[in-house]
């Protein structure tokens, strides 16, 4: 057995595991022990080599809580957004920085550890039911370490107006940590909410985030889900989002990936009843030697379901990105509509993108489109701007921003849109100039 797998096993054995979920954790660990980390011979991991994660010896036991000042948290908060906030520092729930008091009726937001104690029935029904430990060793690894994370339950016919911000903040600590946040979101019938999952690394901390989020939408539930990945440039991030959708439910998923040395986002949506709709938007911006892989999968299991997917990437430096979008239209899932597009902008000769939109159709009365583009900045646009007195550097930045903004400008919720626009501008070479340009 590989030494580092033993490392996860020893850490597991050091942790208390005596609640009702113990057996599930143990089974998941066994599964991970047997499979080990995925290798690039597997089709699903062909372009992403996880050996850097495998080779490194992480500690899975966050014992010493690093202190984070209120200023540090404030700096990364939404300044213009009144929200319900649950904060984790290096994987550990921080009551001090969270604002969970005075929640409206009909909503539960709590740390997973509390949920395990308080909401056994709901967790028994939903936890591990949508993210399958057999699908990915990383999911199994996460399940083995389920402790901290966020449980959200929205009661039927409840509209939660305040967005819920789940903040995972990582900071350098003694030795590199592996954190395994597990989130479960249960949306009752005809309920509505906006949830933001943020992963933010401070300084240039070394750590490994292995997160799993399970979402279930009852009939006519409506969820807007934003994932903002701003891990440190030395961090590894593996994130799974698994969604099960009921009749006439709607999910909007926006996944923004900006940070991390090695990143893999997996999103899997299952349209399991008629009238279910999923919108999947994603933006990845990479530079230096970053590697960012987005794998999405949508299963149209039932007739009259709808999916629209739009991913965009901006690649610079020697970075590499992967997009793999699979849409599967199952037998008898007639009258469905599925549209998928991936567009990429390569800003440097050394950047690389592997894009693969895939459609598998086993029904005959369907409307499907898919496509991918890879290109550089448009020379005609560049010349036009320069001929209008805009210097070359600004013109390049402006066009790059415009490319990325095609995704962000569609976000209906203004505080999030504004925040993301600022974040995206911050990634560009002439941030100050572009800000001036767009703020006037």
């Amino acid at each position, binding site marked *: 057995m590989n030494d580092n797998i033993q490392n996860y096993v020893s850490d597991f054995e050091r942790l208390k595991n005596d609640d009702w979920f113990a057996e599930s954790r143990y089974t998941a660990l066994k599964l991970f022990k047997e499979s080990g980390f995925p290798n690039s011979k597997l089709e699903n991991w062909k372009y992403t080599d996880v050996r850097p994660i495998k080779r490194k010896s992480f500690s899975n036991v966050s014992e010493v809580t690093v202190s984070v000042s209120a200023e540090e948290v404030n700096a990364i908060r939404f300044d213009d957004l009144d929200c319900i906030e649950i904060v984790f520092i290096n994987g550990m729930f921080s009551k001090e920085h969270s604002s969970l008091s005075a929640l409206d009726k009909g909503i539960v937001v709590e740390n997973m550890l509390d949920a395990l104690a308080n909401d056994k029935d709901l967790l028994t029904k939903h936890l591990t039911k949508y993210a399958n430990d057999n699908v990915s060793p990383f999911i199994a690894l996460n399940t083995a370490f389920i402790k901290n994370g966020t449980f959200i339950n929205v009661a039927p016919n409840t509209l939660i107006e305040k967005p819920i911000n789940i903040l995972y903040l990582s900071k350098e600590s003694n030795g590199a940590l592996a954190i395994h946040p597990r989130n479960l979101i249960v949306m009752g019938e005809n309920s509505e909410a906006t949830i933001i999952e943020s992963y933010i690394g401070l300084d240039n901390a070394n750590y490994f985030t292995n997160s799993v989020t399970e979402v279930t939408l009852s009939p006519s539930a409506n969820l807007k889900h934003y994932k903002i990945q701003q891990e440190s440039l030395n961090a590894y991030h593996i994130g799974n989002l698994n969604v099960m959708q009921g009749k006439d439910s709607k999910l909007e998923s926006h996944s923004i990936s900006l940070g991390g040395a090695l990143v893999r986002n997996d999103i899997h949506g299952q349209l399991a009843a008629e009238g279910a709709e999923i919108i999947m938007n994603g933006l990845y911006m990479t530079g230096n030697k970053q590697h960012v892989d987005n794998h999405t999968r949508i299963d149209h299991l039932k007739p009259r379901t709808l999916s629209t997917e739009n991913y965009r990437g901006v690649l610079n430096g020697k970075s590499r990105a992967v997009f793999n979008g699979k849409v599967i239209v199952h037998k008898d899932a007639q009258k469905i509509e599925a549209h998928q597009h991936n567009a990429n902008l390569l800003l440097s000769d050394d950047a690389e993108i592997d894009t693969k939109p895939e459609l598998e159709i086993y029904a005959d009365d369907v409307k499907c489109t898919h496509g991918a583009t890879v290109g550089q900045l448009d020379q005609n646009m560049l010349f036009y701007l320069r001929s*209008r007195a805009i210097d070359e550097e600004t013109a390049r930045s402006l066009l790059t921003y415009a490319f990325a903004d095609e995704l962000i400008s569609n976000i209906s919720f203004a505080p999030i849109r504004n925040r993301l626009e600022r974040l995206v501008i911050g990634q560009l070479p002439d941030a100050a100039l572009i800000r001036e*340009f767009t703020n006037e």
Partner: protein
Amino acid sequence: MLNIQNLHAKIGNKEILKGLNLNVNAGEVHAIMGPNGSGKSTLANVLAGRNGYDVTKGIVEYEDKNLLELAPEERAWAGLFLAFQYPVEIPGVNNVYLLKAAVNAVRKYRGETELDAVEFLGLIKEKMKIVKMKDDLLNRSVNEGFSGGEKKRNEIFQMSVLEPKLAILDETDSGLDIDALKIVSEGVNSLRNEERSIILVTHYQRLLDYIKPDHVHVLSNGKIIKSGGPELALELEEKGYDWIKEKAA
């Protein structure tokens, strides 16, 4: 203002301009006419500094500057303006922000204070009337979803706001109906003054019914083969280009 001597330019291995001479003084309007493929648009693009054109010989002086050494934006700062034959659509870049940034880039270069939002708005309100520019076009992305006529009007609108010293209009009349042609021409005429020079590149004489040139040049096979006054344009309209090409040969 502009002095072009023995200009040779290639695209790839193909020589397009083959020894072109042209002298434009301040306040003059020059029309450059010629059949398709004669090098009209190449001349406009070389003057504005577009990539992909290789100048192999000759000099272009613009106000004591070697124009060919300047980047496109430096030419714009120095007062040169190209109205494009095919204005490009730029999704995500706002028309009015672009114009404000352009105005302030030029002002900065001239050592003038930059305009704030209110001053800028005051400036463009006036100019919008001249080309009958609709308000809603202003806040759209540059040229996105504009009709052919609206794109050309936007070019003239930008020109009137930027107040260049030398304006080059590349086939601005192409694709315009008669009403749009009148509006565009009025816009150009309103900008005529003793300091400003204008080069009209056109295939047809029609534009010159509305904008009276001081000089007319015939470009053929990369060279100016005949120059004259406005009457030359009328003669071309009547007899076509073959007459003059034969004469020059």
